[in-house]
């Protein structure tokens, strides 16, 4: 029966609840406005709109789980919009996601996905399976398709620890919501290709955790070297890429100190090559 004064809805998805009852709160909620604007000015659609963009985020499997890492730069055209932006999010106890695309909608989708999983867990009394979470994210990416035509791309990279299979898993997506599982590693964003090249050269099955972390940071360093949209370690301001470890113990942040010491070693090696 319907309850007055309280939100009524039938299924356990928070995303579907918002879409149906509060569409303005979903990442897709701005589509109406943008479409109206695009039809008024057909030559100057929203695709020319300056929104913070560009990224390299990546995930690498290792023996006990997955390392997920990302740089800290957001750009607006040829300007740097933000030097400290976080692109790797803890979603729940056993999953994390990294994002590439338009910063605002990306962060909005990560936040919505967090609520989505918690909402389901509370309503149903159990957590979604790793596969179920990955599929749900795919549906959210698919729902964002109208925004992609307006230039607001949201591209996630999802990492989860599958408690049933006792292994870490990596999922990538395409703009239409297609979901593909990666067996070893993956990187997305403007510097994704550069990061993938590095990982292809150095990846081995069953890496130890410190080696996987080192490889992740090396791949980000190389991506920042070749891609203007990706930020490397900023030694002056002390801003370093962020990384998280996803394994049976849950999600752990890699401390900034540890990341800094790995980069110090890496930069020293590079410098010795130059002399």
């Amino acid at each position: 029966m319907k309850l007055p004064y309280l939100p009524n809805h039938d299924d356990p998805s928070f995303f579907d609840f918002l879409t149906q009852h509060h569409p303005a709160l979903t990442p897709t909620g701005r589509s109406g406005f943008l479409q109206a604007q695009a039809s008024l000015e057909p030559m100057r659609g929203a695709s020319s709109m300056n929104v913070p963009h560009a990224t390299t985020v990546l995930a690498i499997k290792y023996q006990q789980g997955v390392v997920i890492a990302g740089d800290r730069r957001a750009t607006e055209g040829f300007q740097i919009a933000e030097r400290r932006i976080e692109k790797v999010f803890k979603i729940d106890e056993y999953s994390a996601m990294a994002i590439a695309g338009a910063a605002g909608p990306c962060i909005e989708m990560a936040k919505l996905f967090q609520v989505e999983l918690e909402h389901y867990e509370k309503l149903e009394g159990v957590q979604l399976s790793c596969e179920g979470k990955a599929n749900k994210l795919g549906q959210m990416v698919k729902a964002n398709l109208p925004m992609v035509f307006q230039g607001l791309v949201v591209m996630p990279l999802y990492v989860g620890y599958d408690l049933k299979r006792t292994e870490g898993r990596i999922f990538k997506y395409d703009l239409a919501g297609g979901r593909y599982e990666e067996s070893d590693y993956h990187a997305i964003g403007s510097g994704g290709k550069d990061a993938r090249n590095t990982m292809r050269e150095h990846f081995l099955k069953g890496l130890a955790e410190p080696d996987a972390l080192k490889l992740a940071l090396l791949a980000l360093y190389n991506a920042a070297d070749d891609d203007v949209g990706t930020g490397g370690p900023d030694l002056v301001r002390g801003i370093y890429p962020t990384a998280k470890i996803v394994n049976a113990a849950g999600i752990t942040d890699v401390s900034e100190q540890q990341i800094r010491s790995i980069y110090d070693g890496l930069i020293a090696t590079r410098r010795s090559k130059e002399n």
Partner: protein
Amino acid sequence: MPMPYYVSPEQMMQDKAEYAKKGIAKGRSIIAFEYVTGILLVAENPSASLYKISEIYDCIAFAGAGKYSEFENLRKAGIRHADLKGFMYSREDVTARSLANGYSQSLGTIFSQEMKPLEVEILVVQVGHNGQPNEMYRISFDGSIIDERTFAVIGGKSEAVQALLKEKSLTQPPELQVALALCIATLEQIGNQKLSLESLEVAILDRTREGRKFRRLTPADTKQLLAT
């Protein structure tokens, strides 16, 4: 034109209240009890999967007595209310008071306008952190809302349990194991039977936890806790 039967509003309300009370009286009692670092919730529940106690938000828990389908519906609406508010504003803006008000409005409206009132009694509790006090609200089938201190009881023999707890009540909030033993002893005394740990549903809102404060205690957890 035929005249409809005249029933005085007093009579109608009284009938509805009696009906709802009868439904609730069939159920067993649920206790919420403040302990040093949080709130303990104990329910007699023979089912291990159909819960009467549930998490609503970071610091807020829910307990329902009476008709399962009805309080389950209220529980889900409460989670939606809280998650929506937390998403729209911020996590700290979700409060038990606002939720309890929503429940009160909803139950009150149904009681006065619908043919059949909801046969439920619910509890909304919020553990305070950063020096804030705990909040406990008991909401009845007619939407009346009572702000409780120290402990709150809903369900079948709630008045008897309340009286007994009042007798035993302590000046200071006890440790968790003391509170748990006290609640179980009270339920056993009222039911006049020994309760196995498997037939109890126990959960806590622990303010020392990070983020989400709600945690269920399994029979193994409660056994271990009572042994210390």
